[in-house]
């Protein structure tokens, strides 16, 4: 049976064989998503996660179990991302704006570009519209929608994670999806069947 988060952290602190590997494996995707939220650049997000994990490993004996290990790690990562953003601001050529406008230096890392620039443009536009629509939702709806679509959680898991009734999750999700759908009407032509 997999160790719970605190147990795993304890094993990492005790330098138990394979514990740190398991720790990295358990959190890396969640942390990547967190880093992506800050940095919006794939390579930078991966670097940030790796650097944060190195920091965690070096500081593992200083960890105090009064906070959840993920909270501790995510705080380290968030600080690291903020530092990276500051450095990026000092070097405007690598800015977020540049990437969003389709900075050619960053396009090379996107495997999807192989489909052609128009399709990639359409995907980017679709993503942008979805982000806009989701960020405009009321907080509960936004959270429920994000957990269902981006974290791919079931409705029961969402209810349990948020500590609310299943009915609340259902109604919030329905309302959120209706709003998002309405916002996406303008980009109807950009929507393609999944898997295409």
């Amino acid at each position, binding site marked *: 049976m997999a160790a719970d988060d605190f147990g795993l952290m304890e094993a990492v602190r005790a330098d138990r064989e394979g514990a*740190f*590997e398991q720790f*990295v*494996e358990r959190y*890396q*995707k969640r942390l*990547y*998503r967190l880093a*992506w939220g800050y940095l919006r650049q*794939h390579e930078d997000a*991966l670097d940030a*996660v*790796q650097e944060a*994990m*190195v920091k*965690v*490993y*070096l500081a593992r004996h200083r960890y105090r179990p009064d906070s959840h290990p993920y909270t501790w790690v995510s705080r380290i990562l968030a*600080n690291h991302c*903020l530092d990276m*953003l*500051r450095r990026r*601001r*000092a070097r405007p050529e690598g800015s977020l704006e540049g990437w969003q406008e389709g900075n050619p230096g960053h396009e090379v*890392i*996107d*495997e*999807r570009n192989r489909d052609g620039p128009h399709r990639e443009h359409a*995907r980017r536009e*679709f*993503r942008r519209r*979805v*982000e806009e629509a989701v960020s405009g939702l009321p907080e509960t709806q936004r959270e429920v929608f*994000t957990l*269902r*679509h*981006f*974290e*791919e959680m079931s*409705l029961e898991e969402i209810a349990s994670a948020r500590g609310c009734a299943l009915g609340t999750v*259902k109604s919030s*999700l*329905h309302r959120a*999806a*209706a709003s*998002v*759908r309405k916002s*996406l009407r303008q980009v*109807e032509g950009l*929507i*393609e*069947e*999944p898997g295409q």
Partner: protein
Amino acid sequence: MMGRTPWSCRRTRGRLTQSFYRLLGSRRQGAFDRHLQACPACRAEWEATRTALQRIDSATAFPFESQVDWRRFTRETVAKARQAESAREQKALPGPGWRGRRPLLAWGGSLAALLVALAMMLPRSFRPEAPQTARPIAVSAESTRSLQHNVARQGAARYLRDSRSLLVSLIEAPVRCRRADGAYDLSLERERSRQLLRKKNLYLGSLDGPGDQRLVDLVEQLEALLLQVSSFDDCTTARQIHDLRDAIESRQILMRIDLVTRTVEGGGSRV
């Protein structure tokens, strides 16, 4: 029967997302499906909704995540972490010369302690005369004080340098607040300011030399600025940052920190 009443287009379109998430009960789902079979316009709308919502998945939010070989990433991360730790350990280990001399030094230390203890136990007549002992004690107290003073000056210089980087990052590269438009997230800077303020008193007490006045003045002026930063909200307005920048520029704080720290770290006795 009421359950068998055909649904209107309006009612059907109001249930599109519920059907997508399978939130309709079997009876309602049946009515929904029957309407779609009979109504091409609603069927088209359903297809568009289904396609749009299916497209919004983790790949939309994190478009490159699926390209990562996570197993390899784990291996590389673990290797990097272990490498970093062994590099740190190598750095922390003293050289072999030191290790070789260590027993000798320990033995020397014990011998010195033994001699001091013996001297204390000797009868008064075997002790050196009072005037002869007074002088070395006075010299030692003075050198201790001088050492303390130097440590305080170096500490104050470090404090100034840290405060400088904090102020520079704050006024030159503030990070946008994720919670409020047009505001800046200064939570880290605020915490750092508080830490620096807590350290300040460690240095100031020992900076009482005649040449320390400029250093003390600057540390105290910085205190006002750091207090201002530490009182900011998590999401600070651009106006507040602008005011802070004005205060820093009008007092030429950054330039003065440069001058003062250069003098202290260059070994200058006067600031």
